[in-house]
Every structure is written in structure tokens, then in C-alpha cells.
């Protein structure tokens, strides 16, 4: 049980560092146990964007927190290799550059599993293979397939 937990953690941590590095184009990130050999201790997330030393995760900006959380979610996905990801407006706080990076990454994951995203962001729509438009009339929703 302990060996299994540590193996999973090491694997997810490796993916997390790589994806964080890719999204921030540098910087350092890690997942560690509060007490390294005790699998019941808490899990610490460290995230340092390039040139920065935030004293806690809260000190990161809105967009930096979004990218850090996304890196963690994708690390879990790479470990589990599940069939789908359904994400509702995860890009709301991102600027154009980071929206683009995130959209490219999601497009890549789309080669291995089904990725469905809700977004208001043109960058995201530009990278999608298909799009659906949801409209509301008199309180009733309809879904239409859009030509990209």
C-alpha cells in the first residue's frame, strides 16, 4: 500500500513538474509530502513561476493559480489515462498568451482522450476540432453544431 502510494505520487509529481515548466516556459514546481516517508502526512504544492519566489500559493496571481491547478489536473490525467476531460471555463482568468498555451496543450490531449471545454475565449475555439453553440430563447436552451 505504502509502496503503491509513493510510486503514484512520484509519477504524478514528475508529470506536474514537466507540465508546469511547459506552461510557464520555465520556473520550478514540485509535489512533496510534509514528512517524506509518512504517507499520511499532507501534500505540499510548490509553484515558482520564472524569476519569482512566492511565499505561498495564495500570493500567485489569478492566472498563475489557474495554470498551476491546470498542470496538476493534467498530471493526474496523464497518470490515470482516463478517456475524457470535461472542463467548464477553466480559462476565465487567462490573458491571450496563456489562453493560447492552454488551448495548444488541450488540443494535444485531444489526441489521446476526448476533451470537451466550455469557453468564451477565441483562442480556445480556434484550436478545437469541433464546436457546439448553445442558445437560449424564451428560457429554453438549444444546441447547434457550428462550422469552424
Amino acid at each position, binding site marked *: 500500500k505504502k509502496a*503503491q*502510494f509513493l510510486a*503514484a505520487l512520484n509519477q*504524478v509529481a514528475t508529470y506536474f513538474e514537466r507540465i508546469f515548466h511547459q506552461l510557464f516556459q520555465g520556473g520550478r514546481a514540485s509535489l512533496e509530502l*510534509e514528512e517524506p516517508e509518512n*504517507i*499520511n*502526512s*499532507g*501534500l*505540499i*504544492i510548490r*509553484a515558482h513561476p520564472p524569476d519569482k519566489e512566492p511565499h505561498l*500559493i495564495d500570493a500567485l496571481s489569478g492566472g498563475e*493559480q*489557474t495554470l*498551476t*491547478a491546470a498542470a*496538476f*489536473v493534467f498530471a*493526474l*490525467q496523464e497518470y*490515470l489515462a*482516463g*478517456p*475524457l*476531460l*470535461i*472542463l*467548464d*471555463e*477553466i480559462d476565465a482568468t487567462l490573458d491571450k498568451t496563456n489562453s493560447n498555451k492552454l488551448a495548444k496543450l*488541450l*488540443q494535444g490531449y*485531444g*489526441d489521446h*482522450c*476526448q*476533451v*470537451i*471545454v*466550455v*469557453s*468564451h475565449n477565441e483562442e*480556445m*475555439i480556434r484550436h*478545437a*476540432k*469541433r*464546436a*457546439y*453553440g*448553445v*442558445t*437560449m430563447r*424564451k*428560457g*429554453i*436552451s438549444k*444546441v447547434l453544431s457550428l462550422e469552424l
Partner: protein
Amino acid sequence: TKINRVEISGFKSFQRKTVIPFFDGLTAIVGENGSGKSNLFDAISFVMGRRSSSLRAERLEQLIFNGGEHLSPSSMAEVTLYLDNSNGLFTPFFPDDDQPREISLGRRIAKGYASYQFMDKNCPREMIDRILETAKIDPDGHQLIAQGNLTQVIEKNPQRRREIIDEIC
């Protein structure tokens, strides 16, 4: 496996039967504020067994189309999810029969009535859980991220975060 299509009727703002096919790759869902995008997300979470509290409702009945200002409410909300079975992933669930090309999971609610379906026949909730586990889909995990919930995964306290690793190994 993958989602082949979702059928929704009478669920939140989807009054009429709506069929949405899904494909491989990245699919974007767009639309104005309040048009029903997150309701579509909630419909998929609903059929996978999530409780009303994580579907922005206090009671299950509030998930039934309420008629809005001008229309009469629906009597039932129903969502059916079709998962692909072309690679025979769900073979163990069909001991005697032929392999269907796809399986269907369903959930219905009406006033004072709630049920789950597997291949159009009522089944216990545990059946849905076992099928999703076979498909490696965890509706309470990281694969379904509701609007505004992404950063919760890093905001949790260290103990709660540790449990995320527990759940996946």
C-alpha cells in the same frame, strides 16, 4: 471508451429532447451568458450520479425544467449517456449476450421518483458506479471540472490534497 452522444430532456433549461453527438479530439462549447452551457455540463454530471448539491440545486426536483416565466414545467428530467464499446471494454457486463457497439447509462427524476438505467432497464446506482470505474471515469475527480472549481484543487488543505493521490492509486 468515449462518449458517443448525450440525450437530454426536461433537465434544467433543456425542455425538449436534445441529442448532442460527441467525437474524438478537442470539442468547444460556446454561447452567451445564461444560454445553458453549464446546464449541459450538469446533465453529464447528473447521469454519472452526482448529488443535487454539486448541480447547483437544493433538491433533485429543482433539476426538472421549471417552465421559466411563460411555459408549463416538465414532469420529468431524463439524461442518457451513450459510451462506446467497440473495443469490448464492457464485456464483463454482458455475460450471456452479444456485445453491443455502445452501452447506455440513464438517470430519471420526477416528483417523488428517481431511478437509474443501464441499457434502458432500471438498475441500482452501484451498477452505474461499477461501469464508470471500468471506464476509468471518476465524476467526483479531476476529469469533470465545474465552472469556477479549477483552483480548488490547489487551495485545498494538504491533507485533502493527499487524498487525491490516494483515490487514483
